[in-house]
């Protein structure tokens, strides 16, 4: 900047002549959610430019997918958004089923909803806790993990794994629920519901938290759409878009009989199906607070969905149905399907040459698009706002780098 001023005589010199600094935030940094590396250009505390550098977690997942059968690749989807592995499984499974025009049983559909929404809660809990950590408060993180542990216990009981489940698979699920599971799940929901108010007290309505998030990193709906943001990041800017409602038939059919309202601010207010804290006066639609708040709403919404799914699942008689064989051939052609994952719209694309092994596999990661907008949001903010903004985007590097 100094150089520019020297060159341009029209601009009067101002302030202390300062030099800019390039600082590396990450890949080893406490608040970059894995191995993200942000290069910050700062003038003192003010950040003038942020450039994310990615790829530290690249594992050639898509290439591997072109060498495995469709069902064999399921464990690799687990490792994309490892915080919401169920949703990843579902996305891939549905994409394959779309190509194969395969219809799973109704019971399996409801079980899938149940599991996926439960995992959404788990994922948002991590997002929320980690966001507190980004803002310097430690305890909510552990409160969130405490509850997440209970969900993981349920998952463990259902499929034997706590992180990489591979539970939902092409053509259904690997196994039905063990007996007594639903009771435990309902007990968990019962116990979990009041705890959300604690989270609101600790974070959502906390004065310091509001100060740190309100009116920070404001993203206009246009900007969000321009950058292809999706999920809570998009809805935090007030865009009413949810794949569960607006997606393709094969996906929306799952949620057909479910009552839920998309968690987005419409006409100046959020859905009023539950009691939520009021929006603070400082908050502007599209800022970090709103992105965070949308996630908190979705937790409640997912609980409703889980409850409904339990009812519907128990109402379904008959068998769950077996998943497809590992070597089941796919018809030649291609399919692309986006599902609503906790982080946003996760798209899977596959091209088949008629064998069981896809000819091409590609994934469209929501976190990737969401991270791309950080560079716009962080312009002119303070260093302390960078974790606040990046945290509010709630990215997972496994999904971005694949």
């Amino acid at each position, binding site marked *: 900047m100094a150089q520019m001023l020297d060159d341009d005589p029209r601009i009067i*010199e101002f302030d202390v*002549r300062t030099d800019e600094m390039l600082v590396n935030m990450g890949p080893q940094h406490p608040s970059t959610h894995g191995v993200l590396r942000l290069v910050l250009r700062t003038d003192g505390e003010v950040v003038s430019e942020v450039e994310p550098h990615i790829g530290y977690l690249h594992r050639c997942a898509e290439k591997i997918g072109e060498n495995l059968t469709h069902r064999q690749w399921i464990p690799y989807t687990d490792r994309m958004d490892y915080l919401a592995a169920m949703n990843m499984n579902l996305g891939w499974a549905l994409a394959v089923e779309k190509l194969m025009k395969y219809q799973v049983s109704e019971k399996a559909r409801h079980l899938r909803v149940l599991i996926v929404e439960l995992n959404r809660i788990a994922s948002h809990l991590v997002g929320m806790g980690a966001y507190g950590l980004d803002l310097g408060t430690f305890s909510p993180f552990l409160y969130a993990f405490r509850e997440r542990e209970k969900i993981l216990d349920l998952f463990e009981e259902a499929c034997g794994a706590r992180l990489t489940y591979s539970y939902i698979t092409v053509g259904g699920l690997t196994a039905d629920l063990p007996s007594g599971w639903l009771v435990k799940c309902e007990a968990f929901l019962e116990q979990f519901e009041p705890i959300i108010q604690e989270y609101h007290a600790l974070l959502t309505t906390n004065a310091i938290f509001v100060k740190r998030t309100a009116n920070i990193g404001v993203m206009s709906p246009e900007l969000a759409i321009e950058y292809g943001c999706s999920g809570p990041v998009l809805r935090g800017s007030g865009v009413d878009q949810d794949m569960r409602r607006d997606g393709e038939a094969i996906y929306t059919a799952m949620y057909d009989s479910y009552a839920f309202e998309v968690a987005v601010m419409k006409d100046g207010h959020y859905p009023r199906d539950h009691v939520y804290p009021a929006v603070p006066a400082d908050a502007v639609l599209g800022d970090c607070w709103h992105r965070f708040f949308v996630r908190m709403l979705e937790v409640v919404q997912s609980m409703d969905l889980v409850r409904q799914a339990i009812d519907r699942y128990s109402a379904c008689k008959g068998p769950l149905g077996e998943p497809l064989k590992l070597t089941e051939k796919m018809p030649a052609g291609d399919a692309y399907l986006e599902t609503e994952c906790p982080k946003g719209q996760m798209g899977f694309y596959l091209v088949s040459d008629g064998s069981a092994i896809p000819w091409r596999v590609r994934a469209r990661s929501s976190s990737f698009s969401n991270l791309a907008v950080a560079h716009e949001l962080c312009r002119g903010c303070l260093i302390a706002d960078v974790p606040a903004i990046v945290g509010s985007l709630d990215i997972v590097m496994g999904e971005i780098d694949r």
Partner: protein
Amino acid sequence: MNIVVASAVPLLGLITEPVSVAHYLVVGAILFVSGVVCMAMKRNALGVLMGIELVLNGANVNFVAFASPYLQGEGSRSLGLDGQVIALFVILLAAAEAAVALAITLNFYNNHATVDVDRADDLKG
């Protein structure tokens, strides 16, 4: 060995004799001269500032020494409170001076992109 001891003995007086005003004056003189030399030698404006601080501090040591009731020997009258109060004022003014001088330095840096006082020769004849 005796020679060594003998040469050490006069210095031992320093820790056996009570301190007098002159002791303090010596300290003050050293601080003062350090400050002057610092001002004369440093090309860094901040160094010059530090020199000024040292000079003022040296003067303060003298004031305090003259004010101190401890240090007065026979036949001399302490400045009493006046010395301390003046030293106090000197400290305050030093702070003021530092503020202004820093502002000047900053301005100089803004205009010349350096704090080298040798570059501050705009008034050179």
